[in-house]
């Protein structure tokens, strides 16, 4: 089943208000049948008003650098709690073994989206992206390799 959903996103306080109208992409699901479902949005809430997060409708960095590879929604958070910033890749993320390899190699498109969202939020709230201590520890060991890999991808992974 092909399903398309139109969604209108309103950014309060930015000029005329209506900023983004997007058609959600679809992705193929496994299991043989030609089923498709919308990709899930990755979302952060930025503790700044929408007009600061996206002045004149311009996407914040580094999200803007992802260009047409992502869809983006910006909307005010309830209760005056800032701005909800959502994004998702236009291309489907690989699944199964291919997906695991892509994640380990840093090639899963969702990783770039998560990293960009986290960094955009940090830049808007604090003015910089906090760097991890470098070098992360005083030496590398074989036993620590999985943790080393996990921390290298830490901003691109997680539940975001």
């Amino acid at each position, binding site marked *: 089943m092909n399903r398309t959903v139109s969604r209108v996103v309103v950014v309060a306080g930015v000029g005329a208000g209506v900023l983004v109208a997007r058609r959600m992409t679809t992705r193929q699901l496994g299991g043989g049948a030609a089923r498709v479902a919308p990709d899930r949005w990755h979302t952060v809430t930025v503790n700044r008003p929408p007009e600061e997060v996206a002045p004149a409708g311009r996407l914040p960095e580094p999200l803007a650098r992802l260009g047409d590879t992502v869809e983006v929604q910006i909307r005010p958070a309830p209760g005056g709690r800032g701005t909800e910033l959502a994004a998702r890749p236009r291309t489907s993320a690989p699944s199964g073994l291919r997906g695991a390899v892509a994640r380990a190699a840093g090639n899963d498109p969702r990783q770039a989206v998560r990293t960009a969202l986290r960094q955009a939020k940090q830049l808007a709230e604090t003015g910089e992206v906090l760097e991890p*201590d470098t070098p992360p520890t005083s030496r590398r060991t074989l036993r*620590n390799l999985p943790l*080393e890999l996990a*921390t290298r991808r830490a901003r691109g992974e997680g539940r975001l």
Partner: protein
Amino acid sequence: MRALVWEGVNEVAVEQVSDPRIQNRQDAILRVKLSSVCGSDLHQLSGYIPFMRAGDVIGHEFMGEIVEVGPDVGRHQVGDRVVVCSVIACGRCWYCEQGLFSCCDNGNTNPAITESMWGYHPAGIFGYSHAMGGFKGSHAEYVRLPFADQIAFPIPDGVDDMTALFASDSAPTGWMGADLGGVQSGDVVAVWGCGAVGQMAARAAMLLGAERVIVIDRFDYRLEMAEREIGAEVVNYERTDVDAELRERTGGRGPDVCIEAIGMEAHTPGLTYRYEQAKQQLRLETDRPHALRQAILACRKAGTVFVLGVFAGMVDKFPMGAVMNKGLTLRSAQQHGERYIPMLLDRMARGELKTAHLATHPMSLDEGPRGYDLFKNKKDGCVRSVFQPSA
């Protein structure tokens, strides 16, 4: 520079590691004057926090002198004597604005690890594993301070270094337990654990108006210290039935507020301890919650249990029925230190909050392995080993 590093389970050593440097414009570099061990280090030391790498610098309770500032540091200058909160928080996200600094959205550079474990990531913490950002700890000659304007606090004249040291972690942690536990005038408060955090929680409860404060531990030297230095009533759980004792001392009601300051490696007499230890070592449960269970059962109806002790994962046989049917409030947090430190330093300056007695074993950084041995194995009356990296 020299630093005390985690080498593996129950193994620490003093090594040469690279000097920290300014990496962000809001960073500062601190020359560490004093750095204390903490009970929560022992969970890392024992291997119960599986996110350590050999060579990680540990330690998170510290004070010192600022020796370098990044271009966007506005509140501090080179030469300032400061105490630093163990929790790395940005001060500007929604959580920080609510005073919930240990829930900061921007202080942890490895968010995926704890998001996967706990749903959302907390703030970063110095020297506290890669799950908490992998920031190098304070048992070192120098340490990088991210968001320096937010996490470092000038020490008032008249407050000596050793007193101010404990404004970094144990005093604000203890204060938070009493404050967010809702201690009110006339309350009876029970505190499980008589280390530095437990003693600070007991003192905070008194300053917030509690009429009686009872601390529970098994080491007489710690109980005697709490009695002498804090003025708390004491219970040795190896010599009495804690539940019955608390019932008797509270007119049958139970304590209004119960503060758990022990965490995931709780000890208990008898077979229960062996059973829980075996389960923990087999990873059938990650945390031993005996003291927490006891606090929940002992607490009066509609009372509050505040968990200050560090837990990391899953506990077994959690008395949810007691929480629900007695109408308890259960709260917890890593410390929101930035919320309390200026006030605590003022109280220290006024002599209301004494902490220097906690530093039972000051020593050089080179004696670090001995300091942890004394602390972990409760030798020689050790409450806290405090390292002097600059000495």
